[in-house]
């Protein structure tokens, strides 16, 4: 980020009025739109005291939901990283017919409602879907089990890594990689020694966003999860379930853990950015 250069001491005192006004409006809006809803979650979660809060969090079903959500993120994020990098390399470094189209397909999940993503998977893997009978014969359970949740999560998070890394790779051009090539490096060596160090912050940011989304996905997962208590309920689903159990404090307590994860993720991201700007 460019730090604004201040003019020298003799500069006439410019009125900072406009700037002040804009900053104030921005801060107020952000507080109203983002900060207060965020704060409200914690306020509600703690409204009946820390003991109730802890009890809600430590409920086995909630704990299981936390574990399941973590597991889903642990599976999807690495896959996202590998595939995202592969797609970015392909699109940034080669020209081939259909390149633009491929990029569009990769970004397709951005424009598909998560709930509809779930429907798509239902139509594909459901017992009455395209592949359903086949899967039923082979006794493979995809929907209403971990594989289904992982698959839809992969769907909704598919574009993140590519989207972060690709513009950077395109902007940087391939000259360094060509230099490495003339020096005799193999493909993997080039990637590991030259490309990766250049894009590592963008990659991390992409991974952070993908994991945030993986952890927080509700619509798509709710279609394919079957919401079996303590089994296929991810944390967002568990929150809805608690809400419908009329355990509102419990719902907000679970929500606050998710919010904490979100805040931690953003904190990591901000740190990363700080470092990459410094580097």
């Amino acid at each position, binding site marked *: *980020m*460019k730090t604004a250069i201040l003019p020298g001491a003799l500069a006439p005192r410019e009125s900072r009025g*406009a700037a002040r006004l804009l*900053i104030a409006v*921005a*801060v107020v809006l*952000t507080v109203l*739109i*983002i900060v*207060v*809803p*965020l704060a*409200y979650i914690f306020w*509600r979660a703690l409204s009946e005291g820390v003991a109730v809060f802890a009890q809600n969090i430590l409920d086995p079903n909630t704990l299981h939901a936390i574990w399941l959500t973590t597991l889903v993120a642990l599976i999807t994020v690495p896959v996202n990283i590998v*595939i995202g990098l*592969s*797609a970015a390399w*392909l699109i940034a*470094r*080669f020209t*081939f017919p259909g390149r633009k189209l*491929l990029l569009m397909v*990769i970004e397709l999940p*951005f*424009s*598909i*409602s*998560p*709930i*509809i993503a779930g*429907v798509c998977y*239902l*139509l*594909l893997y459901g017992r009455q*879907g*395209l592949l359903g009978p086949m899967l039923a014969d082979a006794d493979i359970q995809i929907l209403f089990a971990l594989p289904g949740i992982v*698959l839809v999560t*992969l*769907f909704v998070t*598919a574009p993140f890594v590519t989207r972060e890394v690709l513009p950077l790779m395109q902007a940087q051009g391939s000259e360094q*990689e*060509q230099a490495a090539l003339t020096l005799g490096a193999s*493909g993997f060596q*080039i990637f590991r020694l030259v490309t990766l160090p250049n894009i590592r912050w963008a990659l991390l940011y992409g991974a952070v*966003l993908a994991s*945030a*989304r993986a952890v*927080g996905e*509700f*619509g798509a997962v709710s279609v394919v999860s079957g919401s079996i208590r303590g089994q296929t309920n991810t944390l*967002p689903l568990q*929150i809805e379930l608690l809400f419908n159990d009329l355990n509102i404090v419990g719902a907000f307590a679970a*929500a606050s853990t*998710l*919010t904490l994860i*979100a*805040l931690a*993720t*953003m904190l990591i991201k*901000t740190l990363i950015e700080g470092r990459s700007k410094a580097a």
Partner: protein
Amino acid sequence: MTGAAITMPRRARSRRVLPGFGLTMGLTLSYVGIIVLLPVMALVLKGAEIGPQRYWEIVTAPRTLAALRLTVLAAAMATLFNAIYGLLMAWVLTRYSFPGRRLLDAMMDIPFALPTAVAGLSLTALFSANGWYGQVLEPAGITVVYTILGVAVAMSFTSVPFVVRTVQPILEDLDPAVEEAARSLGASPLTIFRRVIFPAIQPAFLVGATIAFARSLGEFGAVIFIAGNLPMKTEIASLLAMIRLEEYDYNGAAAIALTLMVIALILLGLSNWLQGRMQRKGGRA
């Protein structure tokens, strides 16, 4: 030139300089095929199964139309708000230094990171008649919860980062000399923004707004909590698809889903085209 008729194989395009084409192509295509294309194909096939006439009937049924109208309208409202708010944020975050700027910057990503259901829950509680905001707004005659306003609020919350994050880097990268040039030519700050800065960020702005719009069209988790889901009034299209599903009406669900997807794709295509045109026009200096 020596007319030496050595026929050389045409090699140029048959060789790729950097390695990894086959590997990444294979990996990417199979992944995209399995994770993205195959399920979407299933939806399209289902849609094709319905037949054009039935499809038309479903989509033009009053309730569907109402839901689509509401969704598009609310998404438009949300996008309008986000466009303005996003531009303001991008501007403030790049142009001014003030205490807490980094924090404000970090806040921009919260809506992405926060699960939509949690957001919906929290917004509903805040805006309901006895919530923090509702207490102020209801007496003033503004009802947010269970109205189109609520739908728009939820949609705009979940798509806040799109405009900010697409405009911000462009704004950061803008050559300050161009603005200085305008300043030295006597332009006022407002004129500079209108005639020099905005045209430069316009393509990115457009893309950000379109993605925000597409995302709003599809937003579900946050909206269902705050919308009230009144058929013909506050029922969004993706909820209607969900309801159709729960009514065992697969055709209805697929038709609505397909329609939503097509609207989003048309919009994205349109914005890509516009952006391309703008870049050809002004483009790289």
